[in-house]
């Protein structure tokens, strides 16, 4: 649900990064933050535990530029990935315009990915959204590690809808902006059609 402000000629959209614990959602945001022009970004906020696990959310506001005289702003959020923070995850999905599912490509995390994706579907449905209808992209993170599930298998299990997907390594930044651009583009195309 984007916010179109004719008075200040701005449009604000909300993107949520979802995925299992330690898959690299916060790292994605940190990389975007580091590589963005200071004029185009606000402060990055992380509500995390002392051990730097996300407790509630990370937040990063980005200004992309103007389209037809409207300033486009994207608010990037991550959810806490650990299973027991489900109540918080539901809250962060409120009013979402687009979702990035960050998968941990390591073999031993395959079940955690599937569980998290299932959880995303359920939580979206609770808010009245259908994952197949909203702007959605998938990122296979940690693709630089040796023990990863083959991409075809990941794709079959985590992206049956064949949405845009990207291999990534969030620590070096590979695939991070491609993912962000893809979801931002889908959101704008959605707006063009007249909203959700």
């Amino acid at each position: 649900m984007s916010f179109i402000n004719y008075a200040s000629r701005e449009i604000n959209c909300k993107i949520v990064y979802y995925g299992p614990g330690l898959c690299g959602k916060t790292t994605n945001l940190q990389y975007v933050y580091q590589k963005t022009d200071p004029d185009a970004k606000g402060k990055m906020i992380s509500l995390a535990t002392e051990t730097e696990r996300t407790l509630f959310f990370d937040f990063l506001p980005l200004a992309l530029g103007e389209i037809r005289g409207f300033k486009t702003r994207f608010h990037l959020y991550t959810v806490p990935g650990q299973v027991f923070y489900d109540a918080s995850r539901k809250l962060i999905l409120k009013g979402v315009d687009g979702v990035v599912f960050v998968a941990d490509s390591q073999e031993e995390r395959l079940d955690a990915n599937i569980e998290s994706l299932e959880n995303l579907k359920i939580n979206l449905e609770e808010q009245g959204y259908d994952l197949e209808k909203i702007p959605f992209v998938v990122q296979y993170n940690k693709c630089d590690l040796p023990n990863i599930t083959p991409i075809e298998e990941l794709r079959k299990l985590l992206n049956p809808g064949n949405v845009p997907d990207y291999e990534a390594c969030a620590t070096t930044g590979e695939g991070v902006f491609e993912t962000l651009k893809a979801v931002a583009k889908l959101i704008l195309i959605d707006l063009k059609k007249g909203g959700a």
Partner: protein
Amino acid sequence: MLGPQSNFVMYDEEFKRINTVIEKLLREANSKVIFLVDKNGQLITAVGETEHLDTTSLASLTAGNIAATGGLAKLIGEKEFSILFHEGEKDNLHISIVASRVILVVIFDSRSSLGLVRLRVKKASDELTVIFQDLAKKAEEMEKGGNAQSPFAEITDDDIDNLFS
């Protein structure tokens, strides 16, 4: 009110009316800063001494705060907690929900008092509720009349690609 998935649109006329109400509230409540935030964390407007404030972050955290307390409320069988108050050494925050949809935040210090802020907020909330109802009606009419054309209806793929160049 607007459905959970419809876009939230703000028009010039209502924006001015809203600002008039909260500027009056700023004066009458002797407060420092007042801002209005959508429940999803988007800043709608801010008045007062906002120069040194990161209003975007404040908006997102306020919405997170309201969402978390709303979750708490539901767990104990309440619909929501419509007022939150945070007391600091110098500055205090008074947060309330207006028209079930937006969040009104008043920052004040010792020049004012909680009682005064509560009293003035109540009155301003009623006025704001009317404006947000008008806004919802307007959006609905626009949609019915087929005038709901998004300003983005005519953008091209090139426009979108240009954003990322």
